[in-house]
């Protein structure tokens, strides 16, 4: 909501100019972000990659805060992919430490802002100490009714589908059903994101034009916004700019006009 920004935005600032251009009746319900560029940010400053990840946490804070104030229903952040295990062990350890520190430090804040914390991905393969913090955050915020902060950890879009199909097949066998009876909706309900609307807006920082195995099923009709800004530099105005760009686009969902859009929205 606009009023939620009154205390944090300076009159006459770039934030304010951008904020005024946002149509609050047509906000994306769900924003997904591929947080790319921490390493490049660090390289440009001749800093260790870990310093880039630390700086990236500031961008997470800013994005979570601004999204919640806007009134976005869900924000999904791609924090750690299945492929990221290929990174140097020291870097992985630092990332996990930052995640734990972030949760410990921000949990009160998240809770106070009525944000519900969730994860997607095979989190059971993460270190027990990380899982402990994740469970604590999920449990504490389980009954919050505000924005859903969904963090993708040890996530892969293909693995998500594998997991969904396995569960679905087991269910079909148990119920003695044939494959014919499986519907799109039923598949969606077995994905990690069950219950969440599909992302309307997918933001990728650092200029790369790739989806990188992120929410493959769910982004079927998402508007993709790519910015050259590196993730550690991403702040409120960058988020506003993405939303303004999104709102300028005509979303057709494969149809021709607004009626087609409504048809799809009603169907899902």
């Amino acid at each position: 909501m606009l009023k939620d920004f009154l205390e944090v935005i300076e009159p006459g600032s770039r934030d304010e100019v951008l904020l005024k251009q946002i149509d609050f009746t047509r906000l994306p319900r769900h924003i997904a972000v591929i947080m790319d560029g921490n390493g490049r940010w660090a390289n440009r400053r001749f800093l260790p990659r870990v310093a880039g990840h630390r700086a990236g946490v500031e961008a997470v804070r800013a994005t979570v805060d601004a999204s919640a104030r806007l009134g976005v229903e869900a924000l999904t952040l791609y924090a750690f992919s299945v492929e990221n295990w290929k990174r140097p062990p020291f870097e992985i350890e630092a990332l996990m430490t930052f995640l734990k520190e972030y949760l410990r430090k921000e949990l009160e804040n998240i809770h106070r802002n009525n944000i519900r914390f969730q994860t997607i991905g095979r989190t059971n393969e993460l270190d027990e100490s990380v899982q402990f913090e994740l469970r604590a955050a999920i449990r504490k915020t389980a009954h919050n009714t505000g924005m859903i902060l969904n963090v993708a950890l040890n996530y892969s879009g293909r693995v998500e589908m594998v997991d969904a199909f396995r569960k679905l097949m087991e269910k079909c066998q148990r119920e003695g059903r044939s494959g014919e009876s499986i519907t799109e909706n039923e598949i969606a309900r077995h994905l990690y994101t069950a219950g969440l609307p599909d992302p309307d807006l997918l933001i990728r920082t650092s200029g790369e034009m790739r989806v990188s195995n992120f929410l493959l099923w769910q982004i079927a009709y998402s508007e993709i916004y790519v910015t050259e800004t590196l993730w550690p530099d991403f702040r409120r105005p960058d988020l506003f700019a993405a939303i303004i760009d999104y709102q300028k686009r005509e979303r057709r969902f494969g149809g021709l006009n607004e009626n087609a859009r409504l048809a799809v929205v009603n169907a899902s």
Partner: protein
Amino acid sequence: MARVLSAIVFLPILFAALWIGGPIWFSAIAAAGILLGLYEYYRLASRGGEVQGLTAAAAMLAAFYFGRHELIIAIIAALVIVEMLAQLFTRAKDEDFSEMLPVAATRVFGVLYVAALGGYIIAIRVIESLDNPRLAAKLLTLFFIVVFAGDTGAYYTGRALGRKRLAPRVSPGKTVEGAIGGLVGNSAAALIAHFTFFPELKIVHAVPLALVMGVLGIAGDLCESMLKRGARAKDAGNLIPGHGGLLDRLDSMLFNAPLLYYFYCVFLK
């Protein structure tokens, strides 16, 4: 007097590099010190190998800086192979090969002793913490004041009260009284750190840490003295006026840098 003057010039630079700007400044100074210390080691050892050794050491320090710890083992492997091959190619026509192992081993050991241990100082500088953005600078400030207070405490207590020699053959100037004075200095510095800039370091951690650092520092100092005497030199070099060689300054830090790094991993992470 030269000793005090050196400190007055050098300490402000050291602490300024530590607290102002990113980790690169301090790391560059530390790397320069470590590489010069290693160069002194090679001169003391007088068995050659400076070029490969300093190259491997520089690569190792870069790996510490960029958090690519997994590359350090690869650098060691490469250095071992290079030094062994160097022996093979230069000695094949010698009458006797008895110097092969001492030379190859001495050259590799310098990198391990000075750069692998000293590199931990850089590893500490690049520690990142969300809760405590100054943690790395605080840890290293603690590190230096504990080491310097120990050295100073030992020096003056030893001069005033020193009777019983600690290790007469290794380092005739060191006394038991001086060592105790050093430990008092170490602990006092850790307490000062706790009460001034480093309150998150608990006293129950700070004092034992300082005492272990003190003991390891003395041990490191004695080891380096023995190494030097083995090489028939009193000071490892004469870079810092009044302080002997750079290696003499580094010796008590080399054993303590890994200690402090793992102390952080266990107690402050």
